[in-house]
């Protein structure tokens, strides 16, 4: 079965630059996405490109760290570090030696809502590399010695995180907004959770997690459809048909204003701010994405970058982002400034968010955002690895195989009325949750009964 989307989407850019004004007619992406389904029923999106002798594959299963058992926090993350530590008749050392010999790259990751994997291989080692992945997914060993080693590495990394200002700010902010929901916990888990995890727990998770019904696959590079169909069956065909992961409960989110100061004796305070927002499947998401770009995600030229960095020299970086999870969406941003100027930075952030919510973007800002967002879309598709990553994301969000083709038109269709309405809807300058790590001058936590 094949479905084909022709991706010769056109950039319709009216150039506003001072130097040139020409209409561009470049394809955003000069490639074709094919949907390939193997005889065994495993589906993948494929972009064939034989220019360089490499193949990149990204895949995911539904269910991640948020589905960790409450007494086994860190289980999915630990699994991501254990899958290449021995499988089948290869112990850890033999498995690692074989990966090295094949010069293949394989990695796994546990997000809140999904478990992801990636594989890159030289064409000449293709079948052997896919075979190694199959072994990891279907016959992992979880031997005691590598388990203790990797567990020790995660514990070390958790200890380091407790001293890293950026990590503390991020984790504490998530804890504040999501309170007791699983999203409030670090994917890496806790020392207690990690201590409780056995090899059997990991085996049990692989049987529940690796179900073909939630498997999503994207493959890009030097491989044809027939070969991919065969490798899809070889690699994933023997996995259980159904995933058995628990459903993560809907998340209630804290409302601001809240200010939390985490005291650390460092010269510069790290600031995180934000509040609840919308999910990816919200009809306004793409409009919100444009609003956020204008406010704080676009680097130079974004309102926050201009006000915080360019005019006042308050921070090296300042950004905002939409972070949609499956059971809730949030919006957050960050900056870092010398302790004496934290209060000023917070005031500028509040003022800019208020201005955006009340007045929305200007027509010029909207036009500029559109030319950037549509014009730069092709930059996300200039390597096998990046294309595979994009195609996986598009599938996970159910955006459709023609999304790459339609996406710039959808951005161009956003109106000034849209962005003004949605800015008001999604930004709440008075309801911000601030987390500050450092020793900020004249800033205190907004209460003491913690």
């Amino acid at each position, binding site marked *: 079965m094949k479905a084909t989307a022709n991706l010769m989407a056109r950039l319709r850019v009216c150039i*506003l630059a001072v130097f040139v004004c020409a209409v561009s007619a*470049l394809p955003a992406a000069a490639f074709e996405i094919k949907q390939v389904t193997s005889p065994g029923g495993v589906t993948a999106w494929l972009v064939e490109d034989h220019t360089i002798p490499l193949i990149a594959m990204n895949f995911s299963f539904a269910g991640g760290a948020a589905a960790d058992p409450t007494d086994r926090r860190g289980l999915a993350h630990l699994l991501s570090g254990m899958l290449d530590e021995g499988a089948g008749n290869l112990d850890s050392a033999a498995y690692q030696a074989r990966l090295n010999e094949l010069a293949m790259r394989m990695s796994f990751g546990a997000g809140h809502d999904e478990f992801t994997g990636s594989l890159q291989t030289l064409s000449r080692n293709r079948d052997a590399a896919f075979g190694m992945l199959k072994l990891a997914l279907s016959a992992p060993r979880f031997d005691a010695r590598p388990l203790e080693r990797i567990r020790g590495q995660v514990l070390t990394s958790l200890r380091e995180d407790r001293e890293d200002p950026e990590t503390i700010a991020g984790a504490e902010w998530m804890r504040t907004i999501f309170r007791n929901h699983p999203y409030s916990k670090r994917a890496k888990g806790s020392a207690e959770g990690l201590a409780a995890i056995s090899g059997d727990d990991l085996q049990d998770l692989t049987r529940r997690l690796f179900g073909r019904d939630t498997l999503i696959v994207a493959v890009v590079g030097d491989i044809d459809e027939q070969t991919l169909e065969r490798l899809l069956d070889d690699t994933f065909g023997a996995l259980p048909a159904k995933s058995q992961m628990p459903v993560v409960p809907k998340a209630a989110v804290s409302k601001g204003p809240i200010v939390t100061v985490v005291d650390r004796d460092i010269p510069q305070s790290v600031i995180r701010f934000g509040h609840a927002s919308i999910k990816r499947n919200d009809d306004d998401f793409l409009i919100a994405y444009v609003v956020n770009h204008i406010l704080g995600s676009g680097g130079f030229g974004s309102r926050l970058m201009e006000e915080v960095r360019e005019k006042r020299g308050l921070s090296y970086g300042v950004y905002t982002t939409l972070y949609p999870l499956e059971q809730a969406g949030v919006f957050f941003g960050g900056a870092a400034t010398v302790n004496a100027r934290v209060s000023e930075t917070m005031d500028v952030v509040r003022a800019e968010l208020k201005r955006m919510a009340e007045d929305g973007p200007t027509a010029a800002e909207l036009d500029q955002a559109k030319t950037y967002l549509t014009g730069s879309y092709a930059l996300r598709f200039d390597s096998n690895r990046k294309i595979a990553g994009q195609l996986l994301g598009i599938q996970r969000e159910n955006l459709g195989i023609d999304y790459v083709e339609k996406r710039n038109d959808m951005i161009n269709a956003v109106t000034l009325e849209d962005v003004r309405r949605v800015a008001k809807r999604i930004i709440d300058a008075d309801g911000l949750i601030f987390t500050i790590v450092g020793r900020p001058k004249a800033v205190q936590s907004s209460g003491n009964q913690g």
Partner: protein
Amino acid sequence: MLAEGQLGVAVFNRLNAIIMSAVVGLALVLATPDARALDVDVTHYTLDNGLQVVVIPDRRAPVVTHMVWYKVGAADEPRGKAGIAHFLEHLMFKGTDKVAPGELSKIVKRNGGQDNAFTSTDYTAYYQRIARDRLDLVMGLEADRMANLTLTDNDVIPERAVVQEERRSRTDNDPANLLSEQTVASLYVAHPYRKPVIGWMSEVQKLTRDDAMAFYRQHYTASNAIVVVAGDVTPAEVRTLVDKHYAPLANTAEPGERLRTPEPDPIAARRVQMADPRVATPTVQRYYLTPSYRTAAPREAEALDLLAHVVGDGTTSRIYRKLVVEDKIATFAGAWYDGNSRDYGTFGFYGAPAAGKTLEDVEAALEAVLRDVLANGITEDELARAKNAMLAESIYALDSQFRLATVFGSALAIGATIEDVQTWDDELAATTRDDIKAAAAKVLKIERSVTGLLKPAPRATAAAQPATTQN
């Protein structure tokens, strides 16, 4: 050792970090093994005004990467002006007669492009990634700021505050990076590589507009620049645009030879140690002064790359197998070689003790691995595996247009040639076990090294628990 200018905030880089990223303070050198052997059809020429041009085809997507590399970095700074090369990199976005302050990045954005810049000890580079029919535009912008930078204190003073915040974010807020800075400063007794690229705070806070303009006038000129274009464009198309934008530029300065005080022969092993309450994991690291690819004897730098791979790169390396897997002395440990600077390279190893073990245990175990290599060399099998893995890296590099452009641009900027890049695989293939043994014997001497020890320290007062409530 890049100090990246401009935007550097990686959203969620930490929340999603995976296990193997636990290496402290060595990230950049370890993260990107080199790929000089690149099977690509490179065009290279020099204009009458001295500007070099490199064109690298990559026709897979309708985009280009345009870079301008200046052969000047932190090691070329005048005394007392540490950080001026990097500060000037920031100020290069502050406009010309034609382009208002901050406008360049906005023009690039309005055309769907992305831009940024970075500074190292040996070079400063600016780049745009953009649709191929915008190459004309970005070349015009770069040529303009190569010749016509204008600065006012209105732009310079806030930007100096930004650079100070950048230093606090990168270095002062992170004890591992503070110790690395001290270790490097001790490794070089005389050579300017001892200075951090971002500069010492005491000097950064005094840098002025005049300092920046003087440095700009001395170093930013056609004969000191390399233009690299990678992407969906032909050499002929690039030539037309180069003739339009870069060829008319007069060569306005002669930066002269890059004279830097050479290191005296190392005679004293050095140790630096730092204790800080913010240290969660003690670590030991040792840097050895070595030749770079440019200054090494034939196959010597390749030998050091192969040696580092066998001894300390990844979970199949000798150090990881011995210290982490078998003897359980360390939580993580490894070794690396960085030969990509102009005058010197560095061979390094590092480790963090496992529960119940000390820094001294780890250091002794690391030394034992090196002693074994010095006495017995490596095996043919290890050599073959290392070559195989490193050559594969150069194929993976072909998947990144940005990386291709960077490999060639940085090579020329430090004084290597296109041919050096393209024959790297032959040199690597020809490197023998004897070459490796000889390189190890020459370089791995304690008097050539600095050992850095990072230790925890008690807090003066316990950090207050976060207090949270809702209003």
